[in-house]
Each structure stands twice: as structure tokens, then as C-alpha cells.
């Protein structure tokens, strides 16, 4: 199975927040396509970590609900979660400081380069400064 695109946390989080509302339909379609295996994406373990940080302990969300969301996330047919490589961390720090982006975003960029992936499903403007990467906010065939 070939994974051609990358996924960051902003797409599943948009389904959860329903904001930005103008992006919701696009993000929902991306997640549905991944769910059915009609789109195959890769992400690093930083993505569920970021989602967990936001979801866990949130008022009104029980542990069992958060567990159910993650169970469904890890069951997405077209999603492959790969290890966040420690060997990429020194260059990640340099990239994050140079471009003034978050460590996790910089690590995603490094991981994409390592995996020879140049398209990313994301709403995050931090990725705009990488012209070599194509940012996708809607499902593209």
C-alpha cells in the first residue's frame, strides 16, 4: 500500500470543533475517504499525541468517549501512524527555530521529506512557508 499524502491533527480536529466552519465539509470528506480506505495517508505519532493533549480531560468529554474517538481514529482504514523518529529531532529544532514554527510541525516536515511525501492535508498556516509542500484542505483525487 503506497501512502502519498501526510495528515496533520488540524483536519480531524476541525471535524471535532466544526471550525473553521467553511473548512468543515472539506475536512469531513477527507476523514471519510481515509475511513473507507479510499485515501491513504501517513502521519507520525505526534498527531494522536496532539489530539490527545486537546481532548483528554476536556470538560464534558468522558474518558470512555475520548477512548472511543481514538479507537475509531486508529481504525481508519487508510491511515498509517508511523513512529516519530528521534534521529530527526536535532534538525527539527533547527528548522523550527529558523522558520518560527512549532516543533511538531517542523518534525512533520522532516518526516515528510524522509518519506518522500510532498502533499499534506492540513489547515495549519505554518506549512505555507514550505513551497516544496502542497497544502490540501479538501480531498483531491
Amino acid at each position, binding site marked *: 500500500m503506497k501512502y502519498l499524502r501526510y495528515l496533520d*491533527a*488540524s*483536519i*480531524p*480536529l*476541525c*471535524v*471535532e*470543533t*466544526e*471550525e*473553521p466552519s467553511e*473548512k468543515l465539509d472539506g*475536512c*469531513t470528506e477527507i*476523514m*471519510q475517504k481515509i*475511513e473507507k480506505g479510499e485515501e491513504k495517508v501517513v502521519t507520525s505519532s505526534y498527531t494522536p499525541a*496532539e489530539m490527545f493533549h*486537546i*481532548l483528554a480531560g*476536556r470538560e464534558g*468529554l468522558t474518558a470512555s*468517549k475520548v477512548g*472511543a*474517538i481514538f*479507537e*475509531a*481514529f486508529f*481504525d*481508519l482504514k487508510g491511515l498509517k501512524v508511523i513512529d516519530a523518529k528521534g534521529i530527526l529531532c536535532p534538525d527539527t529544532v533547527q528548522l523550527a527555530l529558523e522558520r*518560527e*514554527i*512549532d516543533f511538531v510541525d517542523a518534525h512533520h516536515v522532516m518526516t515528510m521529506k524522509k518519506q518522500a511525501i510532498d502533499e499534506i492535508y492540513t*489547515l*495549519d*498556516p*505554518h506549512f505555507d512557508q514550505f513551497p516544496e509542500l502542497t497544502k490540501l484542505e479538501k480531498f483531491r483525487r
Partner: protein
Amino acid sequence: MDEREVESKVDKKGRVLIPAETRKDLGIEPDSKVKFRIEDVEPKKSFVEEAKGTLKDEGDAVDLLHKNSPFR
């Protein structure tokens, strides 16, 4: 033979795991034959159905991600 009620998830190849404690209690070993009586099937949960709107009124997805960022 004792009856046990266990819940198990079906994997991509259609296999289910009998929990270790149940295997031990019932003396189930590799190549033992077991009879199943399936009483309930819970369909696979959809991520979109599970997740949709769970953080409604919490603001924009990217703002949430960048809340503690030094580079907002």
C-alpha cells in the same frame, strides 16, 4: 464445560482473540477446537460519527493546536 462471556475485536483478517485468562481457565491450548455462540455484534465505529462536534464551541481547530505555541 463452563460458559464464558467475552468481548473481542475482529481484526482485519477476521480473527478474534480469546483473552488469556479465559484460555487459562478453560484449558484452551493451541489447536484446541472451540465453539462460538455470537450473541451481539457491535458495528465498527466511524471516526466522523464519534468525533463530530465533540469540541464544538471550543473555537478554531488551528487556534486550539497553537494555543500553547511560542509562534502563534
